[in-house]
C-alpha cells in the first residue's frame, strides 16, 4: 500500500470509529444510568434469540417499565449472552453502579454464586427466574420442580410428561427423548425425573435420546436422524423444541404421541387431535420475578418466601383450544396469530393478571400494575429444595421422597 492509500484507509477507519462511538453513545437507553437520583433496577437477561427468552424478557420489561415503577426506579436492561464470564462481569458492573434490585436469568446455577454473594453483602436483592441459583441469599422463581396446578402432588415436568406419555402408550412401546442443552442442570433434572418414570415400566424401551438444544430447528434435524434409525418408534418425550419434533414426524408421515413444552404449534396440533401433552416452563415468570423483586424492595425480605415454585400448565389433546383473540378466555390456551414456536404460557391469572399478548411480544409497559398477592401458596416444598439450591434446608437430609409426591421415591430432601 502506498502512502496515499494508507492515509485514506486510516481516514476511513477513523470515520468508522467516530461513527461507532457516536452510534454507541447515542444508544443510551431512555432511562439511562447517568442520573443517580432514582434507585437502580437491572433486568439481566441471557439473550439467546428464541421465543422463550424474548417473551420472558418482554414481560419482565413490561412490568418494570409500568408508569408507577418507572416513577420510583430507574430500570435498565442488560443482555449477557450465553457466556458465564460475561454475566459475572455484568453483575459486577451492576453491583458497582449501586443496583438495588437485580432480576436475572442465570446462565449457570453455580458459577454466579461468588458474585451474587458479593452483591448480597453490598445490599443488592437478587431474583432469579426459570433457571435457579444456589446462592442462599437470592430468591428463586422456577418451574424446574413445579407441580401440576390441579394436583400439587404431581411434581416435576420430566416425571409428569413421561407418565403422560406412558399412559398414552398404554404402558408399552419404544420411546425417544429430545433433551435440551447438554451439560445444563435443567436438562438433567427433567431427564432424570423422566427416566425414573420410564424405568418403572418394563414395557417401555427408550430406544434413542438426543439433544435438541431447546431449539426447534436443531430438534427437527436430530429427530429426523433418529427417526431414520427407529422408524418403529411409538412416542417421543421432548423438552422445548417440540414443534421441531412434530414437523420431523409430519415429514416422515407419522402421527405418534408427543409430550413437550408450550409451543403454539404443539397446542395447535393437539387441538387438531394429535395425541400428546403440552406443559413446562412459562415465560410469565419474567414478569412475576420483577413484581416479586419490587415487593421485596417495598415490604422487605420477609414479605415473600425465598423459594417459589410455579405450577405446571397442563394442556392435552382434549383441552387444547384456540383463542378467539389475544386473551386466554374460557379455557382457550393458544393463539391463531402466533408463530409456531411462540410460547403460549404468557398469563398467570393470580400473580400476573396485567400480562397481555402485546406485552409479551413487544415489552410495552403494562398499564395498571396490580399488587402481588401472597405467594405462600407457591412456596416450594422443602423436599425438592436440593434440585434448586444443591443442598437441603436445616433439619432436612438428602434421601428418597416417599410421601406427598407422585411419583414416589425420587431423590430429594426428607425430614431428619
Amino acid at each position: 500500500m502506498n502512502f496515499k492509500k494508507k492515509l485514506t484507509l486510516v481516514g476511513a477507519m477513523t470515520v468508522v470509529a467516530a461513527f461507532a462511538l457516536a452510534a454507541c453513545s447515542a444508544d443510551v437507553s431512555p432511562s439511562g444510568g447517568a442520573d443517580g437520583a432514582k434507585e437502580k433496577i437491572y433486568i439481566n437477561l441471557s439473550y439467546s434469540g428464541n421465543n422463550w427468552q424474548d417473551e420472558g424478557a418482554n414481560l419482565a420489561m413490561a412490568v418494570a417499565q409500568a408508569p408507577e415503577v418507572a416513577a420510583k426506579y430507574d430500570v435498565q436492561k442488560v443482555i449477557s449472552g450465553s457466556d458465564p464470564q460475561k454475566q459475572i462481569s455484568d453483575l459486577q458492573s451492576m453491583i458497582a453502579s449501586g443496583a438495588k434490585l437485580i432480576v436475572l436469568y442465570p446462565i449457570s446455577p453455580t458459577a454466579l454464586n461468588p458474585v451474587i454473594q458479593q452483591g448480597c453483602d453490598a445490599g443488592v436483592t437478587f431474583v432469579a427466574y426459570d433457571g435457579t441459583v444456589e446462592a442462599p441469599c437470592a430468591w428463586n422463581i422456577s418451574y424446574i420442580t413445579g407441580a401440576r396446578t390441579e394436583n400439587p402432588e404431581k411434581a416435576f415436568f420430566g416425571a409428569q410428561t413421561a407418565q403422560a406419555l406412558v399412559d398414552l402408550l398404554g404402558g408399552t412401546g419404544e420411546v425417544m427423548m429430545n433433551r435440551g442443552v447438554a451439560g445444563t442442570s435443567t436438562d438433567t433434572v427433567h431427564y432424570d425425573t423422566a427416566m425414573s418414570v420410564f424405568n418403572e415400566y418394563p414395557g417401555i424401551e427408550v430406544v434413542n435420546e438426543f439433544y435438541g438444544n431447546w431449539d426447534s430447528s436443531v430438534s427437527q434435524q436430530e429427530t429426523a436422524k433418529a427417526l431414520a434409525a427407529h422408524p418403529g418408534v411409538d412416542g417421543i418425550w421432548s423438552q422445548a423444541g417440540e414443534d421441531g419434533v412434530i414437523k420431523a414426524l409430519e415429514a416422515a408421515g407419522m402421527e405418534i404421541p408427543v409430550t413437550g413444552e408450550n409451543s403454539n404449534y404443539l397446542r395447535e396440533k393437539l387441538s387438531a387431535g394429535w395425541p400428546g401433552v403440552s406443559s413446562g416452563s412459562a415465560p410469565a415468570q419474567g414478569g412475576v420475578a420483577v413484581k416479586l423483586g419490587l415487593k421485596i424492595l417495598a415490604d422487605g425480605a420477609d414479605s415473600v418466601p425465598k423459594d417459589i415454585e410455579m405450577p405446571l400448565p397442563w394442556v392435552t389433546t382434549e383441552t387444547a383450544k384456540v383463542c378467539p383473540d389475544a386473551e386466554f378466555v374460557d379455557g382457550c390456551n393458544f393463539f391463531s396469530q402466533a408463530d409456531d414456536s411462540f410460547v403460549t404460557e404468557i398469563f398467570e391469572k393470580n400473580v400476573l393478571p396485567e400480562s397481555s399478548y402485546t406485552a409479551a411480544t413487544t415489552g410495552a409497559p403494562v398499564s395498571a400494575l396490580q399488587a402481588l398477592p401472597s405467594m405462600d401458596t407457591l412456596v416450594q416444598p422443602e423436599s425438592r429444595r436440593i434440585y434448586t439450591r444443591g443442598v437441603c434446608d436445616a433439619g432436612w437430609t438428602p434421601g428418597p421422597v416417599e410421601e406427598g409426591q407422585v411419583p414416589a421415591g425420587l431423590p430429594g430432601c426428607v425430614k431428619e
Partner: protein
Amino acid sequence: MTHLTTRTEGFEVDSHDHVSWPHRLRTYMGTSGGQAALMWALVILLVPTSRLFSSNFPSAAMVNSTILLGLFLAVVAFGQGLVILSGGIDLSVPAAIALGAFFTGYLASQGLPTPLAIILGLLTSSLVGLVNGIIVSSTNFPPFIVTLAVGTIGAALLLGLSQGQPGQNSPPELVALFNGDLNVLGAAPSLIMLLAVLILGYLIQSRTTFGRSVYAIGNSIRAARIAGIRVRLSAFLVYWVAGIAYGLAGVLLLGYGSGSDLNIGNSWLLPSIAVVVVGGSSISGGTGNYSGTVAAALLITLLSIDISAAGFPEGVKQVLYGAIVLLALLLSKIGGGRR
C-alpha cells in the same frame, strides 16, 4: 533448435514411461480430484456398513435424511470452501445464515412475494460477505479476525433490528420443499437441490475464470498479481459469494424448520470448516475440489446419523465426531495429499 527440444523430450519421456501403477495411483490420490473420489467411495461404502449401527439400516429413510441434512451442510461448505481455497477462513457464517433466514421470513410475513423476499434476504446476508470482502481485499488484516469481528457486528445488528424477536413463520412455498408433500419427477426436492448445488458449485469453482483466479490467489497472491489477475476484485467476490451461500443455507433452514431462531446459524460454523478439511481441500488454500466437499458433507451427516442411531451419550458422540475428522485428515495424508 529442433534437436534441442527432442533432446529434452527424449529424457523426460523415458523417465515418464517408467511410472509404476502404484505411483500413478499415489499421484492421483495426491490431487484434489483423487481426494474427492476417495470421499465418494467412503460414502458409498458407509451406506451398507451403517448396518453395524442399527438393525434398521440401511434404509430409504436413512438415505433421505442424509441427503436432506447433507444439503444444508453442502451449501454452507460451498461458501466456506471458496474462502479457504482463496487462502482465508470465514467465521461470519452464523451471522450470515441467521440474517438470510430472518429477513426472508420477516419480509415474506410482511406480505412480499416469496421470490422477492428470498432475493432480499440473500442480499442482506450477502452484506456480511460484502463487508468482509471489502476489508480483506483492501487491507492486509487477517481474515480470521476480520470475519470474526464482522460476524459479531452482523449478529448484533440482527438482534438490534429484530429487538430479539425471532421465529417468523416461513412462506408456504419454502415449507413445501421439505414437508414431503412435494416431489419432483419421483425424487424428493432435497435430492434435486443437492444435485443442483453440487453441479453449480463445482462449475463455479472449477469451470469459471473466477474460480480459476481463486485457486491462483490461494497459491500465491504475488504470482497472481504478476500474471495480471485482478486479485482485489476476486478476493472481494470470494467473500461476497460466500455470504450469499450462507444466506441460501439460512433460507433453506427457514423452509425446513418453517421458522428460525436468531441463533439458527451457530451450529454450522465448525462443521463447515470440518467438512472442507475432510473433503480434501488444503486448509492453507490453493487446492481443493467442491465435489470432495459435498462428499464429505454427506459422509459426516451419514456418520452422525449412524452415531445417533447407536444411541451413545452426547459426550461419546462428540468424541467419535472429532475422531472422524482426525481420521479423514490421516486418510488424505496417507492418500498423498500435500499437507
